[in-house]
């Protein structure tokens, strides 16, 4: 599903590479944590999977598509097969929960009728039934992140990328979000999550890949934060 083959990425003006000869293979349906200190290169991996940055060396293959050589005009269509959740939710403040999710559908050409059918379903799935018409500022942090997860998942992507999704949430709320991601993973969606949160990693007992200074120092099937 996701392959990084001897990937090296050095940003312009950086003294050392953000990723240094990294090779990772992630199978369909896996749940993978990337852990490591700030600046270790975790986020660069997420950006690479989104075709936001391209490696200097090596190859990145996502969904059987070689991202390394992908032309930028193909990027939009490629992204439709990947859902994305961030620490800061990235919701549109002037739209309700329903509208935020529907927006993601409508801008890729789905009709309003499709949105009316699919959006309530996915909001129900993330546990926001009955709060469809609240604005982000009327929702708690955990609820906002649920909206973001709903938006990422509404297209039924093959891969869900989560960049510190619990970074802004308290421990209890974080665990609820993790349960949600776990549920999504059980539908067959590959989940890749970057995190600092040792509690969560230790509780989930999933594959853990630890990165330090751009190198993989640990890759454990049912790992802990360490």
């Amino acid at each position: 599903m996701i392959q990084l083959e001897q990937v090296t990425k050095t940003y312009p003006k950086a003294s050392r590479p953000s990723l240094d000869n990294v090779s990772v293979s992630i199978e369909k349906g896996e749940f993978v944590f990337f852990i490591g200190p700030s600046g270790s290169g975790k986020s660069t991996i997420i950006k690479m999977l989104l075709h936001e940055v391209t490696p200097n060396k090596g190859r990145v293959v996502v969904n059987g598509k070689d991202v390394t050589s992908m032309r930028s005009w193909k990027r939009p269509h490629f992204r439709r097969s990947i859902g994305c959740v961030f620490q800061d939710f990235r919701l549109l403040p002037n739209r309700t929960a329903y509208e935020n999710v529907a927006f993601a559908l409508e801008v890729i050409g789905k009709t309003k009728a499709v949105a009316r059918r699919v959006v309530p379903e996915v909001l129900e799935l993330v546990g926001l039934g009955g709060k469809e018409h609240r604005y982000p500022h009327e929702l708690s942090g955990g609820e906002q992140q649920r909206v973001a997860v709903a938006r990422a998942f509404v297209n039924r992507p093959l891969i869900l990328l989560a960049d510190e999704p619990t970074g802004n949430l308290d421990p209890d709320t974080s665990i609820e979000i993790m349960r949600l991601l776990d549920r999504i993973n059980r539908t067959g969606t590959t989940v890749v999550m970057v995190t600092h949160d040792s509690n969560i990693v230790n509780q989930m007992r999933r594959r853990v890949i630890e990165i330090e200074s751009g190198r993989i120092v640990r890759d454990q099937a049912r790992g802990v934060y360490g």
Partner: protein
Amino acid sequence: MRMKYVLSEVLVGLWRNVTMTIAMIITMGVSLFMLGGSGLLYQKVGDMKDLYYENVQVSIFLKTDVNDQQRGDLEAKLKSDPLVKEVTYVDKTEAYKRFQEMFQDAPDLISAVKEDSLPPSFRIKLNNPEQYKSIYDEYKTAEGIDTIVDQSKLLDKVFNVLTGIQNFALAIAVVMAVAALLLVANTIQVAAYSKRREVAVMKLVGASNWFIQAPFVLEAIVAGLIGSFLGLLALIGLKVVAAGGSMAAVEGLITPVSWSEIFLMFPLMAGVGGLVSAVTAWVTLRFYLRV
């Protein structure tokens, strides 16, 4: 639905920054008015050149004491000259008649001039009016000739003035167009900034580039079209004012501008206005949005 989304985004976008939008439209309007005006002038100058140069003549005035021999030689030479299309001889009587016609409002002048004092002349039409110089060189030393006058010299002066006005209008059009262009770029930047969250989400979920850019580009095109409409109104206003006022005096001299000519300028103005705005917006987005 997508079309409706794009259109409502365009209206919201124009309204969001309404003072800037108005500045942009006015600048665009002035620029396009100048462009349309110089376009009309260009057409008029072309028409007038055809009309005037068609009838332009070279006059060879003979000395009043010219004898028949000299005159006959000259006439024969002119008639066989390959540069000359047509020769007419205007004798003293004919010249006096024309003089009377020309100055019929000034009987004092007519009575002061005797029939005998006007010189006879050859009126020549050239195959190519620009070859005046060769005619002049060839005949200036011939016997019995007083002066050679080229009417096209006079016309050149008139047309130089008109071309000057036209260039001036074009220069203003270009300067205003640069100002309009910068305003478009600025407006698009402001619009892109105020919609940065939406754009980020659209990029994230994989909205196509044209879909992200379309509202911005259309916003610029709509402003450009409104601007060109403003320019058209200004041209119409100019014609109305000119027809009733100061320009009426030169009506006979300058061929009048018809309504259809003014309206035919609109496609040019709208096309330039729309295209320039669209390209500017698109280029701005390439730098600013990096979609």
